């Protein structure tokens, strides 16, 4: 009874359970990895200490040998010239050394060279440690005696910075931190995935059935998959319907009066039950997250990978050749994207997604083993064809599952999954490429796509989406929009440059420029990740700002200026923080531009929308965007070919600035806002 009473307390909400489980998992993950990092640091220090000691001995002996040349000629140690400069030279070659010193027999420091943050050599009784290896302050000190004719005439001293190992290992702490952040994101996604797959789905189905029964509909039933507690509740509810229908049918068979019973009620009179289904936008969020994660893993190093496969015998300039696979990718996507609605209608959402993911996975593996440039292009086409089909199918699925008023929320599911996947992929992709190599990172990407396939298979039912039709506008009507000068001017000054800068600058030029500054794969990934991070955080904020101020044009202009400033800042600096700021400005600008660009279409092009319909206008916008994506890398590659990376970046930045200012001018004049 007491259990029942306590059971009547407010039940835990699903979000609350999710937060608690997510917290437990993240806490366990962080604690485990922090502990492992601490153990690793200790193990590394223990192993490196004797190696550093050996090195210090060798160095001290080497200094003593050099000085001995003079000492054996009876030149007093204190009378030697240039020893300070000699010690300074040595110090620069050995980063683990805190100081080098030469003392007289009494331990007085005669010559010394100290690292910037090293100890004050003269303040330590160095000679007292001669021949031993002891610790003073943060340094290990080794002294090697200088002996002439059996008499000790001085010491060569070497101090090793005990923090060297710790400081050097700190270089991987950023990578570890990023890996951990990505792991936390993945764990949270997994928590939501499993909760959604089990708890949320079951509760959604239960609610549907309860609602149906409340309305007098006893003809429905839920197919349960698992044997958990919620599935048992569903079984009990199914049992109630079965029992009521059994009694109803017996009553009918016995010729009883069932008219009153039929009033406002529906029974499974023929014995077959109507299945209850819940289609939720979130169902495709998790496969999409892992799919994007797998595919985008090569984002931070792809141009560098292509550069390695570049063959001068093809007669194409290296920069253009590097850009080609990126442009070809968009072209291949264009071929499969329109197939998505038809395939979903015939095969269902699940099979269409699997049909897209399979060639993507195969394409990634084949890319890893590609031995030539042409082969690489071919496999990129296969990968992109799958990629195009999957992303289009997911957008169609989101459109099918959402009523009109919730469409924006469903697109939010798409943005969150692609954004989250891209952040994780660029960060981890760089680290993996640096540690495992480009080829193995592609294989890891293919494996993650396989995980996405498994989730898709388990999450979606095979019948879902079969027979669904998504309206597509008539071809003839759709093409008419390209004749509108106003529309095409807006596209040329806004949609085209924003996509060109994304593929041409961020995806093509940024990795090459960072590589030219000797950034490793992990550092390139970290820098590029900033773009996706800013985009994910600011996308919703930009939409809110746009809705609040109802001035989309201003946001587009501000976004364009931010992108131009980001490009110009990026190629004007070599400082890691400023480079990241440049990428952040590009991300900020893109987030300001992306949502308002679509939102202004019905307002700025009212007459065109009335003439051709909203669908064709939006479709034309997407076509121009794709054209920009194709042109971006080729344009950037061509400029790099004759002007170099830095100038190409500047030209792209100035180009964006010019198009944005022209757009601002046209907006001020009222070319788009005036009613036509």
């Amino acid at each position: 009874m007491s259990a029942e009473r306590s059971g009547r307390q407010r039940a835990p909400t699903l979000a609350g359970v999710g937060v608690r489980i997510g917290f437990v998992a993240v806490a366990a993950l962080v604690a485990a990895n922090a502990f492992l990092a601490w153990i690793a640091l200790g193990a590394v220090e223990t192993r490196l200490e004797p190696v550093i000691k050996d090195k210090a001995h060798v160095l001290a002996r080497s200094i003593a040998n050099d000085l001995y040349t003079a000492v054996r000629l009876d030149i007093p140690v204190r009378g030697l010239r240039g020893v300070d400069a000699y010690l300074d030279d040595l110090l620069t070659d050995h980063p683990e050394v805190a100081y080098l010193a030469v003392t007289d027999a009494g331990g007085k420091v005669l010559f010394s060279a100290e690292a910037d943050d090293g100890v004050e050599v003269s303040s330590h009784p160095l000679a007292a440690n001669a021949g031993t290896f002891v610790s003073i302050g943060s340094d290990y000190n080794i002294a090697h005696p200088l002996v002439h004719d059996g008499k000790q005439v001085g010491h060569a001293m070497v101090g090793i910075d005990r923090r060297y190992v710790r400081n050097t290992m700190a270089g991987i702490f950023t990578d570890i931190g990023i890996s951990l952040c990505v792991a936390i994101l993945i764990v949270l996604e997994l928590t939501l995935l499993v909760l959604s797959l089990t708890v949320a789905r079951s509760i959604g189905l239960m609610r549907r059935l309860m609602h149906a029964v409340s309305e007098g509909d006893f003809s429905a039933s839920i197919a349960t998959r698992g044997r958990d507690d919620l599935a048992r509740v569903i079984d009990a509810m199914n049992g109630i319907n079965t029992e009521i229908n059994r009694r109803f049918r017996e009553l009918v068979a016995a010729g009883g009066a069932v008219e009153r019973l039929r009033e406002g009620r529906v029974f499974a009179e023929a014995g077959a039950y109507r299945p209850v289904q819940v289609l939720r936008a979130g169902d495709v969020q998790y496969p999409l997250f892992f799919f994007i994660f797998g595919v985008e893993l090569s984002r931070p190093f792809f141009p560098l990978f292509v550069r390695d496969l570049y063959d001068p015998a093809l007669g194409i300039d290296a920069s253009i050749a590097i850009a080609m696979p990126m442009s070809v990718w968009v072209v291949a996507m264009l071929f499969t994207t329109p197939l998505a609605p038809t395939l979903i209608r015939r095969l269902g959402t699940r099979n269409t997604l699997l049909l897209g993911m399979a060639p993507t996975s195969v394409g990634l593996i084949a890319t890893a083993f590609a031995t030539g440039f042409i082969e690489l292009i071919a496999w990129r086409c296969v990968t992109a064809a799958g990629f195009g089909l999957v992303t289009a199918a997911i957008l169609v699925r989101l459109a099918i599952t959402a009523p009109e008023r919730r469409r924006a929320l469903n697109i939010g599911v798409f943005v969150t999954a692609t954004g989250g996947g891209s952040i994780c992929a660029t960060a981890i992709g760089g680290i993996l490429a640096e540690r495992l190599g480009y080829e193995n990172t592609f294989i890891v990407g293919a494996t993650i796509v396989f995980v996405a396939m498994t989730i898709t298979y388990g999450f979606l039912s095979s019948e879902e989406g079969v027979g669904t039709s998504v309206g597509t506008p008539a071809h003839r009507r759709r093409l008419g929009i390209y004749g509108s000068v106003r529309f095409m001017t807006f596209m040329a000054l806004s949609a085209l440059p924003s996509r060109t800068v994304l593929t041409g600058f961020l995806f093509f030029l940024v990795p090459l420029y960072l590589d030219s500054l000797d950034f490793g794969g992990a550092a390139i990934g970290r820098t590029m990740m900033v773009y996706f991070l800013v985009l994910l955080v600011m996308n919703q904020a930009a939409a809110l700002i746009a809705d609040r101020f109802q001035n989309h044009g201003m946001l587009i202009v501000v976004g364009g200026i931010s992108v131009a400033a980001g490009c110009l800042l990026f190629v004007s600096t070599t400082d890691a923080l400023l480079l990241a700021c440049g990428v952040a400005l590009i991300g900020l600008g893109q987030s300001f531009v992306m949502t308002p660009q679509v939102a202004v279409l019905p307002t700025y092009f009212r007459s065109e929308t009335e003439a051709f319909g909203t669908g064709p206008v939006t479709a034309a916008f997407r076509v121009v965007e794709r054209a920009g994506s194709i042109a971006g890398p080729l344009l950037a590659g061509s400029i790099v070919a004759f002007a170099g990376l830095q100038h190409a970046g500047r030209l792209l930045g100035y180009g964006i600035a010019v198009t944005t200012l022209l757009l601002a001018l046209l907006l001020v004049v009222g070319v788009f806002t005036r009613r036509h």
Partner: protein
Amino acid sequence: MRLLVVLNAAFLCAFAVTMALMILLNQQKFSDILRGLDDSRVSVVTLDASRRLRQAVDLGLPLKDIAESRTMVEALVAEHPELQSVSIFDAGGRLLVHGGNGLSGGGSEAPRVWSAGNREAAGEVWRIEDPESFVVGAPVINNFGKLEGGVAVRYSKARFSGIVEGLTAELLEAAALIFVASGLLAVLGTAAALWRLTRTARYLRQSVENLLAPDPGETPSDTDLAEFVGYSASVRETAATLAAAERNTP
């Protein structure tokens, strides 16, 4: 129970992948540092030997006639047991003095790559790797800028790999223990988080099962499943109507 298993299986996979990445990163960084320190130490030894030989050739002696060479090589091999061999060779690649383990080809010639590396080094140290060893060399150039020959020091890759493997084994061992502990923590934490949900589900099931009983009792006032109130009312009303119809049927 199934939910607990599925959730924790997913978490444990994520834990394992993160820890594997952590071990990989640490192992790679450690081998970079170790390699750098080993290389730097052997470079000091090699440059030292080269400088001592240079002092002798500066006096006009040809490299092959320097008596100190043999003792110097033997002393280096004795002082640094981790070195596989120390070799002095002339500008033509002829091996003049060799101490430590024999070279794979034997004979009196230094490997060609050594002579080539020595010629291209422009006075600095040069480095070569063969399947079993790392080789660090330095040219010997007299005070007229003429290349007299070089010194090559070989040290074992096996020792380097052994140290790295030792670290990897230690980290794997620690990771296995931490994995078990954190897995247990996750399982217990998840079980605690799911406890109320499971309890509510059990109570709900009991309530549903009792709906058609003669005395169904109270319905849950579950705010999360407000639909239950309408649901139970509909079921009871329909059951009552059915019962009435059954009573009136002969």
